């Protein structure tokens, strides 16, 4: 039988990897559809807002990477136990995403000199603002990003922080051992470790 879930994204880890981790963690089968760059123009118009990742299930299609991750987290029991706990998880996920959004202009900048200038601003302002504060959160939460225990916020950071490296060309967490350890903790989960070993090797 075909898996009941289909996840469509570019051929890379990027913003879909959080969901792939969650599927693997929960042992939920999914069809991992990857669109090659040259094929994207034909695919784009099939999606309501022209974006991926998109999750399909029982004939329905939905976009937005964080919304999809939140849905899967509930399925694999990595969400909170009540509304306030889920608010705490949601808030730290959105904060990590805010940091990612500060880096996005780097990706789209074609001019090398301007690109370098953008990377410098991020390195001098955004990272020193967000990363120490995220470290404080993790220290207060027993090595996790929320609720003092493993939640999908940990998975979100583990899969989005490598995107920072991709944008800047540097090891973002080099000076942040607590954050690196939090990421490693996720990567060492047996189902995740196995996925990392067997997943397609891609540039991003």
């Amino acid at each position, binding site marked *: 039988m075909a898996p009941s879930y289909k996840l469509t994204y570019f051929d890379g880890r990027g913003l879909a990897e959080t969901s792939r981790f969650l599927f693997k963690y929960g042992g939920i089968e999914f069809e991992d559809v990857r669109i090659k760059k040259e094929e994207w123009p034909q695919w784009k118009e099939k999606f309501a807002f022209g974006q991926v990742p998109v*999750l399909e299930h029982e004939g329905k299609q939905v976009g937005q990477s964080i*919304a999809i991750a939140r849905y899967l987290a509930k399925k694999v029991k990595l969400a909170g136990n009540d*509304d*306030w706990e889920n608010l705490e998880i949601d808030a730290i996920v959105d904060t990590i995403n805010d940091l990612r959004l500060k880096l996005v202009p780097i990706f789209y900048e074609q001019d090398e000199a301007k690109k370098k200038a953008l990377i410098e601003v991020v390195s001098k302002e955004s990272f020193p603002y*967000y990363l120490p504060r995220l470290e404080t959160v993790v220290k207060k939460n027993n090595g996790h990003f929320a609720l003092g225990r493993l939640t999908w916020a940990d998975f979100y950071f583990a899969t989005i922080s490598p995107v920072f490296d991709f944008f800047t060309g540097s090891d973002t967490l080099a000076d942040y051992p607590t954050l690196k350890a939090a990421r490693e903790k996720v990567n060492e989960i047996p189902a995740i470790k196995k996925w990392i070993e067997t997943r397609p090797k891609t540039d991003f």
Partner: protein
Amino acid sequence: MMEGACIKRTRKSINIFNTTEEMAPAYKLTYFPVEALAEPIRFLFSYGGIEFEDFRFDRENWPQMKPNMPFGQVPVLEHNGKVAHQSIAMARYAAKKAKLVGNDEWEDLEIDAIVDTVNDLRQKIALYHYEADAAVKESRKEPLFKETLPYYLQRLDAVVKANNGHLALGKLTWADLYFVAILKYLNSMCGGNDILADYPNLTALKNTVLELPAIKTWVEKRPNTDM
């Protein structure tokens, strides 16, 4: 003073200290003195009949307050001695309390996805509005108004048409209140015009939400601000 010999006793209990004792609301929402990103939370608490303290600080106090805020941002929500942040996360929480969420996890995913899409549009508008460099800002104007806004608004209008006048699930959800609550902010960032002028289904949705009794009451009583 007294018009007759009788003192009328009403059913209300007699308050001998002549004071009114009120419990502070369980929720305190802190934000700038504007609608913008706190307004969805205000709409949702109002819709749910949930009392909240709507604290709006003076802008000149912000520099001292900022270091004490989680990640230096507002709005924040205080409840039971805890402080939460991130406007959409808090709106989702308020929506659960106000019972404007889905009936299952997939329904909640559909609502979340359209809210995030509306937020994507907000971010793209903000990238134009808040740009400090005048030349860069001017270069972003035409792509925003000729491409980005029509791209999103046409598709959102189509979603509302296909969903019985709503943004998700064919019925009223917090996605509808979220969208309408930030409209004044979006319009002000776009230079003050009504960005929904050419979009009849979105305009009808705006009216639907504004006509909800609890929202109508809130809009009439809230401070009047430009954004």
